[in-house]
């Protein structure tokens, strides 16, 4: 690929990122950081290439080091995101609440 096509992909992806991220609800900004952190570890691709290749032992070991670091991030990042997202839940259905009848205005007014 030539530089211009790579640059085009990059610029378009920046725009996609801009619009997608603005649509993320503020309540999920912490999971957003955790998951972006996990996916930025796609740098593991570079680490794998370095550690798979023959020719330079130094490059191989540096690559393996990077594989370890990126793996911590990938597994840790996705797992912690999953853990956080599992905690977000909606309000229980009416059953659990309102033992005594609340003043009518707010029973309906509360979203």
């Amino acid at each position: 690929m030539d530089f211009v096509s790579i640059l085009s992909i990059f610029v378009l992806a920046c725009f996609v990122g801009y619009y997608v991220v603005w649509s993320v609800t503020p309540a999920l900004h912490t999971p957003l950081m955790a998951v972006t952190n996990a996916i930025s570890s796609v740098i593991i691709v570079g680490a794998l290439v370095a550690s798979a290749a023959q020719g330079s032992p130094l490059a191989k070991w540096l690559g393996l080091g990077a594989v370890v670091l990126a793996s911590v991030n990938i597994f840790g990042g996705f797992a912690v995101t999953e853990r956080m997202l599992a905690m977000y839940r909606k309000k229980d259905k009416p059953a659990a609440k309102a033992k005594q009848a609340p003043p009518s205005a707010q029973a309906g007014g509360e979203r």
Partner: protein
Amino acid sequence: MEAHALNPWVAGAYLVAGICFILALRGLSSPSTSRAGNRYGMLGMAIAVATTLLTHEIASLPEILGAIAIGGGIGFVIARRIQMTAMPQLVAAFHSLVGLAAVLVGIAAYYNPAAFGILAAGGLDILKGSRIEMGLGVAIGAVTFSGSVIAFAKLNGNMSGAPILIPGRHVINLAALVAIVVLVGLFHWNTPALFWAIVLLSFAIGFLLIIPIGGADMPVVVSMLNSYSGWAAAAMGFTLHNTAMIITGALVGSSGAILSYIMCKAMNRSFISVIAGGFGAEAGAGGGAAVSDRPWKRGSAEDAAFLMKEAENVIIIPGYGMAVAQAQHVLREMADRLKAHGVGVKYAIHPVAGRMPGHMNVLLAEANVPYDEVFELEDINGEFAQCDVAFIIGANDVVNPAAKTDKSSPIYGMPVFDVEKAKTIFFIKRSMGGQGYAGVDNEVFYMDQTMMLLADAKKMVEDIVKALAD
């Protein structure tokens, strides 16, 4: 080795991985779709890794699998065990790993360019363009690493959260930044000395940049480092001509940048002023003492329980103090008891409450607070006028009316909650001494309808729960 870059199937696979990552972020637009989004993220990563492993000749598969197992195991255990209140530190630590990984990959590419297919045709030298991209990637990676290490130390309490101000730091930082840019440009001429100078100088600038920034400005710093980790990945993607890395890098880079922007806006401060640091360092000493002998009312847990039980609606405003005291669970219990009395309970969250974007939301979610009871600043601010009780727990600057009225205040212009419109205000605070991060006095303490509940947040809420039970 060039062959793999030209294979359309491989390029297609990386593109699919990139699209999965876009869907992962897209899922976060609502809590109900977020978990599916996260699965897309995992799928994308699996595709990227599998494609790489399947399309390269691998001389060291056992070592690679071992490395993935070790790293993955560590990551998984950390993710399981980490306390939700420690999320900001964890994210900072993870950022540092991405940064360091980028640096290692950059160095590896420098010493074995043939593996990455970036040798100039027929020669032994690396392509000029690739060298510059590589220099840039390594520089951003190194800044991300050292900056995140400092952010981690500050958030984790290994280092004081107070700004550390080195004399002449602006000049030093600026000079170092210019030097890095010049060196990356010069990397056009291939000498190892230049390469290592870029690496070392970038590590240094990462430390220098974050050291002067105070603890409560960390939401901006963490978002900024998030952004850098993305740009580092994108730069390495340019070097390796890998679409998955470029798309992901751009996504993460813009995500972090947007979050930084949101945080700065929520404090009415410019990005530059946050990065320049030092906020809250000077103000802390002066403002407080002079006004603290003004009369204020002290309330008790029983007062709070009685008044809230009789109220029609209560708005709870949590802040970093709630996280420190780990009071989120008992707070939810209090809300449950109030609801059993027919009181409407809502939570109001300021964008910069806590130490990272969305910090309070995660803690409330952890305590089983339904997310549809939790509201953002602009959605709930109009309701304080009809609100019987505003219950402030561990927040301070975000409810300070000085932000609206006092032009000389360091927080002037910051959007704040209109708590002073509520009929009654309960303000949980450790003591009357502390002044919040900005070091400014808060008019709300002295208002007629305010009762100060001076105690540890968790202890106080526990007492209120007990009083509600009677």
